[in-house]
């Protein structure tokens, strides 16, 4: 019974990684061969034309709102917020106390970013029900989440084995570093203010912002000083 269940989960997981498009499978080395019964691309095309024909969506709006302008993996908005917090301790305090207001100070906020919470460094953001501090289109703080963030392995394990998850993501924390897991609600989005790396004392706010990565704001990577910057 137990073995059967494990087998099912394993098969399901392999399939979940390979369903949508061969693109997923290419560099991942995931099991492929899973055939989606009905091509989602065709289903979406058919649905979209129905919705337009019925007057349920504006075809022009659908084109425009489909492309988040933030397509970088190192989201600019969030990075600017972090850099400000690093150089201005009063701002950092305001950000930790009331992220919505502190983001608004810099002119940030909006769709899917209405309720942000900023937490200090060394925290792993968990998302058992598939959430992420995402802001889309022009006001992206962290952009749309990567696939691994929405995947079953991350969602299932981040709450019970955060250190193991961090290790898998390339961050091996010593036992002396405490780990806190923050779990979002349906609307609440978190961002981590990562630790400012040593050796960046002479850098200006803009140069600091360039160092901040998406993963550091999820809490799964440290920010590196310019010369040794690498992972992801």
């Amino acid at each position: 019974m137990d073995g059967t269940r494990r087998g099912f989960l394993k098969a399901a997981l392999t399939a979940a990684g390979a369903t949508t498009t061969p693109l997923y499978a290419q560099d991942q080395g995931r099991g492929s061969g899973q055939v989606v019964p009905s091509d989602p691309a065709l289903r979406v095309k058919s649905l979209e034309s129905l919705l337009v024909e019925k007057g349920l969506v504006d075809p022009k709006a659908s084109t425009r709102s489909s492309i988040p302008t933030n397509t970088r993996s190192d989201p600019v908005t969030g990075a600017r917020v972090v850099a400000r917090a690093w150089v201005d301790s009063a701002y950092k305090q305001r950000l930790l106390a009331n992220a919505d207001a502190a983001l608004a100070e810099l002119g940030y906020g909006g769709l899917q970013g209405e309720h942000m919470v900023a937490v200090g460094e060394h925290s792993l953001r968990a998302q058992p029900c598939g959430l992420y501090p995402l802001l889309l289109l022009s006001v992206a703080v962290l952009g749309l989440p990567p696939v691994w963030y929405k995947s079953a392995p991350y969602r299932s394990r981040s709450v019970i084995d955060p250190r193991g998850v961090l290790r898998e993501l390339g961050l091996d924390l010593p036992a002396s570093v405490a780990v806190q897991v923050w779990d979002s609600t349906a609307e609440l989005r978190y961002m981590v203010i990562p630790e400012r790396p040593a050796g960046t004392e002479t850098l200006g706010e803009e140069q600091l912002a360039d160092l901040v990565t998406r993963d550091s704001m999820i809490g799964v990577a440290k920010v590196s000083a310019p010369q040794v910057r690498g992972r992801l």
Partner: protein
Amino acid sequence: MNGVHDMGGMHGLGPIQLEKNEPVFHARWEARVFALNRLVGAWGKWNIDASRHVKELIPPAEYFRISYYEKFLVGMTELLVNSGLVTRAELESGKPARDSKKMSPPLTVDKVPLFVAKGCAGQPQCARRGEIPRRPARSRAQPQSHRSYAASSLRSGEARYHRTGSRRICLP
């Protein structure tokens, strides 16, 4: 609800698969689903809780099998039918029913920037819910709602687990 979506604490789901230089969308249809989901949501026929709920009704095996944006597609399709905006017959044929009247979409291209800039607050249906009380860290509560809680507790001293926050929803 302790459905399969509430997978926090489950074992055996394998290693995390990282992807280098991951694109925002892996296929054009994913971007279309993402956009359509926003646009049909603007009809105000359902709120965010309802949209999560329909995705959580996807049978467990399917839930694991299909991708994130396929869940979007399934959820949106269900909501369109449940709300009466689209019929199953129309979905199957891909054509509007003969007697269906052409409607005018609420979120037109000129309103998109405001919608994005203001978020939920840009919609008249927006309403704020009260504070959700802080949950004890080891709660195994399984409420009969769409909200998920970590299914497992954390071993003492290893890490701390937080679940807190206020919520905001767009009422239909």
